[in-house]
């Protein structure tokens, strides 16, 4: 009887609905990146003082290989590409929405940390986002970010001048590739409004201790991966985050950090997408700058 039940369940599993793809809210309808000219929805817009000189904006393609599935993905580097070997660079892993135009204002802010264009900033569109080919999955976004890190490594960047910044979904590749290095390893990690895990998301919504596997095959287990991370951590999270609860997601990630040096920024009144806005752009960039130079 027990065998029959397992066979029944196995049969069902073979053709089951899963809601994994819904995690990725990508927009691949654009024909080109508009950056400052983008007129779609954004979380906030910076004034002209944050404008980046055209000569320091580089849109290019990378090849990402996920288990032999090679895709061309798009990247934007803000800074002098000739000086990557001697600059400090922040790898910005964006969230699950739209494409790089949506996150352009955020990338520009990071390019003003410690002064205009003091640090280089690299951002990519995961496969299926913007002009990047393919379709995203939890594992494929790790492969895409790995491709970006390989590119930085090839430009001569070394671990001690490399930082990773993960926002929302971007916290997953940041934690994964820091905890389980495949090439470059960041010397410091910044997480803004991170996921704890898919399981926390399920349990928050159901009110019960349900396993994530009832709904999705993804784990996004930042709360466990961060235990392996000993690099200094800066964590920013809005107290009013209406999507990833600061208590059940952010606080757990922060608490589980495996290192001894960590900095928490609980931003009073901020929601999921407006931490820099509520902090104030100058306070935000100053705060990150002091974390990096500390």
């Amino acid at each position, binding site marked *: 009887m027990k065998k029959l*039940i397992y066979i*029944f*369940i*196995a049969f*069902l*599993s073979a053709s*089951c*609905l*899963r*809601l*994994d793809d*819904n*995690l990725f*809210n990508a927009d691949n309808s654009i024909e080109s990146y508009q950056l400052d000219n983008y007129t779609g929805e954004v979380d906030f817009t910076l004034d002209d003082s944050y404008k980046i000189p055209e000569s320091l904006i580089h849109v290019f393609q990378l090849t990402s290989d996920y288990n032999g599935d090679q895709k061309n993905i798009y990247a934007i580097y803000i800074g002098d590409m000739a000086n990557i070997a001697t600059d400090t660079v922040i790898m910005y892993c964006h*969230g*699950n*929405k739209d494409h790089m135009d949506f996150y352009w204002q955020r990338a520009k802010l990071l390019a003003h940390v410690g002064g205009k264009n003091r640090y280089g900033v690299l951002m990519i569109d995961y496969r299926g986002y913007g002009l990047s080919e393919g379709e995203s999955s939890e594992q494929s976004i790790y492969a895409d970010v790995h491709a970006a890190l390989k590119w930085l490594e090839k430009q001569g960047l070394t671990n001690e001048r490399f930082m990773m910044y993960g926002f*929302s979904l971007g916290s997953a590749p940041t934690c994964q590739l820091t905890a389980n290095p495949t090439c470059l390893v960041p010397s410091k990690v910044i997480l803004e409004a991170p996921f*704890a*895990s898919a*399981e*926390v*998301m*399920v*349990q*928050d*919504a*159901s*009110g*019960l*201790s*349900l*396993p*994530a*596997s*009832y*709904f*999705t*095959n993804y784990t996004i287990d930042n*709360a*466990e991966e961060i235990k392996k991370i000993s690099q200094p951590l800066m964590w920013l999270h809005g107290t*009013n*985050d*209406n*999507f*990833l*609860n*600061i208590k*059940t997601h952010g606080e*757990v990630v922060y608490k*589980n950090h495996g290192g001894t040096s960590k900095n928490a920024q609980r931003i009073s009144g901020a929601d*999921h*997408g407006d931490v820099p806005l509520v902090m104030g752009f100058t306070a935000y960039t100053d705060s990150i700058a002091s974390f990096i130079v500390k």
Partner: protein
Amino acid sequence: MRYLVASILTLTILAGCNPTRYVAPLEEKQVAVTANLGGSLINYGGTPMPIPLTSVGAGYGLKENLTLFGNVHTTSLAFGVFQTDIGALYSIKKPDTTGFGLSISPVINWMIDGWNGKGRIYPQVDFNGYYQYQTDGNFAYGGISSWVELNSTKAHGETQQTIFLPSLFLGHTFVKPKMNYQIELRYNGFNTSNEKIVVDYISPGNTGALGIYFGVYKKF
């Protein structure tokens, strides 16, 4: 962002998978097969909609005052989760023709996924009151129900704060010779905050979720 991600959790329940199974007992040795549809209401891209949860099952009148029942949750099944509820309805007071009735129903909810074999058991108890306003016919009902969380910890070893996940319900059953039709409104998880989570539940306040449910019973 939240609208699409919310659909990840279209099976999430706030303990509101189904309507009340039985409020009044079946006749002794009577058999019924049932189908149910409905779930908690969510805001999906600005449009209120019930989570479309379905289940099918059967009931049997073991005694005049004791009905046994079991159900399989078919939407869960489609997602690779075998979910069932098995329970009994004990009639405390049954009106002879018209009038008030009372009943209590202990239920075991059991589920296991076909991916990792992770199982969960949630005991549940329903307290039902009903008013039968037609002789052997239609009745309106209401009551309170609660799931019980047996795990003391949740993900990442954090303390499970919610032990009881109660629901209030009001419904009506249209009784025909061979069929019953049920409609029910529930206020699921009214003791649990619905703020700062991925699903945008619809509720009268900042707790729980309203749900709407339909049931069809074929009697033999």
